[in-house]
């Protein structure tokens, strides 16, 4: 019984397009009891409900957050773009996560990102500052004085400036948005961690896969929730026209950043990547480093549809 289901979910995970087709009634599939899985995918138009469901499928936020924790939530706020442009994490996702974290007993939630465009504009236009503050988070700008040089112990990144408040936080929750990226084809959870460091980040692009794997190994996010409510399929990572944005109404949550990224890639099947993980060297590098597995559809995978 178990083996059949595993096989079934593997097949399921391989084709996102198939999963999206109206003929598939995922909601009616037999489900595992909440808390016994480590990769949850929820599809549905209500992003807040999807995030809540995904987290509860993983066992609830209490499983990741201890009472009194200082939690650093890292959405993608890199660009001075509106939520519809899918260049930044959906503010509803951020808001929901912050309230879940606070409800789980966290003492303080910090939401911040080292932005590419002007921080004030990006925080504002993305809607993230307003949403996160509404939910009770602190949303500081990453100021230069708060980057401290740390030994990252990476393959490429030996030493780098790290944002102090992320460094000092008890837990890190990574909230990437799934989008196209010219150099690395897609940007997902691991690349999102670049927002926790300062310095001349543009230098990292010459060995991007190695660098983002080093960052993932260093920060080890306690939970990653991928925003694929809308995905940006071309002209990323900041996007421009709405033509490149596709509505996916999908949220994926896991403690395994490699699974998240492998799943995220599958969302871009029609973008010409053909789900070929070889095009994404950071996946295999991360696997080699023991940060997770790209077999996201394996044991512990569950997908449901809401609404």
């Amino acid at each position, binding site marked *: 019984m178990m083996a059949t289901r595993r096989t079934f979910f593997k097949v399921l995970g391989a084709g996102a397009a198939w999963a999206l087709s109206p003929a598939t009634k995922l909601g009616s599939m037999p489900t595992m009891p909440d808390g016994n899985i480590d990769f949850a995918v929820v599809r549905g138009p209500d992003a807040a409900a999807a995030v809540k469901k995904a987290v509860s499928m993983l066992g609830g936020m209490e499983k990741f957050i201890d009472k009194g924790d200082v939690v650093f939530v890292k959405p993608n706020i890199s660009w*001075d773009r509106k939520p519809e442009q899918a260049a930044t994490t959906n503010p509803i996702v951020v808001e929901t996560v912050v309230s879940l974290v606070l409800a789980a007993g966290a003492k303080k939630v910090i939401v911040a990102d080292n932005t590419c465009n002007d921080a*004030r504009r990006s925080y504002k236009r993305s809607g993230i500052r307003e949403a996160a503050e509404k939910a009770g988070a602190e949303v500081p*700008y990453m*100021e230069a004085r708060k980057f401290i040089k740390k030994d990252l112990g990476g393959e490429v990144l030996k030493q780098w400036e790290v944002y102090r408040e992320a460094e000092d936080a008890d837990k890190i929750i990574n909230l990437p948005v799934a989008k196209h990226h*010219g*150099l690395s084809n897609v940007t997902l959870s691991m690349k999102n961690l670049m927002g926790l460091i300062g310095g*001349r980040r543009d230098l990292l692009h010459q060995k991007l896969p190695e660098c983002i794997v080093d960052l993932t190994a260093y920060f080890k996010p306690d939970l990653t929730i991928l925003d694929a409510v809308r995905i940006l399929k071309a002209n990323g990572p900041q996007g*421009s*026209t709405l033509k490149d944005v596709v509505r996916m109404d999908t949220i994926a949550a896991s403690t395994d950043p490699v699974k998240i990224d492998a799943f995220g890639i599958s969302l871009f099947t029609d973008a010409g990547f053909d789900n070929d993980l070889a095009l994404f060297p950071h996946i295999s590098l991360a696997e080699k480093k023991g940060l997770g597995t790209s077999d996201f559809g394996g044991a512990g995978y569950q997908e449901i549809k809401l609404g």
Partner: protein
Amino acid sequence: MKNLRRGSQIIFLVFFLILFVQTEYKGEDELGMPVRLFLDFDPLIALSSLLASHAVRAVFLFSLVTVVLTVILGRFFCGWVCPLGTLNTAVSFLRMRRKPKHPDDGNFPRLRKIKYFILAFILTGALFGWNAAGFLDPISLTIRSLAIGYNPAVNGLVRSILDFAYMTNIPGISPGADTLLSFLTGTLLAFEQPVFRQMITIAFLFSVILGLNFLAPRFWCRYLCPLGALLGVIGTKQMFARVDVDKGKCVSCHTCNRTCQGDATPFPPGSWASRECLVCFNCSDVCPVDAISIHPTLQSTGDGNVDLQRRWLITTAAAAAFSVPIVRLGEHNKRPHPDLIRPPGAINEKKFLQRCVKCGECMKVCLTNGLQPTLAQAGLEGLWTPMLVPRLGYCEYNCNLCSQVCPTGAIEKLTLEEKQAVRIGLALFDKNRCIPWAMGRNCGVCEEHCPAPGKAIKFFDVEAVNKNGDPFIIKRPEVDPGLCIGCGICENKCPIIDIPGIRVTSVNESRAEYMLYM
């Protein structure tokens, strides 16, 4: 009255500083504040721009308010409103505490005419299309000096002190400094430490103007200020504030002259110069025998106005007229300077120079600190006009703040949509420096940041050969000149930290006469 005047000076100075601090992005695409208000009410800016550009703008009407009030009240603006006048008063106050050596210590009535010659020079120059008013107009001068000179210095000082306190990691002090700095950033201080070319020069020149107050009280206002001269001419016949000295009562003590802010010589009776009077009320307040009254009258109460000597005025005007073609000579007229990237909305260069008063508002408000004062790139005529220096800051795609603050329309107000369609320059790769071209490694930071719809920088997978002769695939970036708007973010973010692998120059700007790419 003296205290009333001081109150007014303080209120207007504070108001001026509030507007100055508000000349920054404050969370909305549109600045909610009329930050350039003082410039709008400045008749010298309006007159010189009007003469130089032969264009009437509705906003110039504000300055008529100042003109009308000056006709009635005389140079009240200098005495009661002007922020530079107030700063000069404040510095003069330090000087006046010392004991005067002789009755007219610090008064140099013969220097008074200098400011009229300066005014004549500026207005004649403007008539021939050279708008030099902004160099010496007190409002423009003060905003520029504060924005480019003093503000970065104050920011740097406060930041370094608080940063140091933060770095000490002492309980109480470190978090306190952190909180204070976070609060100050974006309120009183700039969001990020501003850095300007020529900061020291411009700050120094302003310090000299303030320092002149030690030679004579309000030296600048009395002897140099072209706006003061203009207001003096407009307000010569003021009716509501004429100084009258009662010959019978006067004991010739010179106290009035010594405290006169404008060197308007109330003493001896009948020598009062209405054009020099800053309506400060010092003379009537200090007169020990109450011989001086300031009251409305249609009668002449003094004949001490400056004799400008027509031949000198004509000489000055002629000098200005002849200097116009000369200041325009320069290499920039032979070929456009590649570094001269004007902000989006900047009108045709010739007209731009006729309008721009170098007030520095656009540079103060620029989000990324990319707008910098020119030195020689636009010739002497264009000294201190704004240009984008992409290595220091790029033009933010969704921002049009600079066009919102320009007082003269040198930078036209554009909607965001219009602004995003304006090309201010063109990026081109230096393939000898660009990492994927020169070093055979992927990079692509420029492509990542390019905001133009469809991306003006595109990747092409190309088979290249490494140093050992082995083929490999690399993403090589290319610029699409049809899409590039010249915003400069590619150059700004290029990892080659000194001379970038991609550079934006002014070629192909929308307002250019000739396009490279047609």
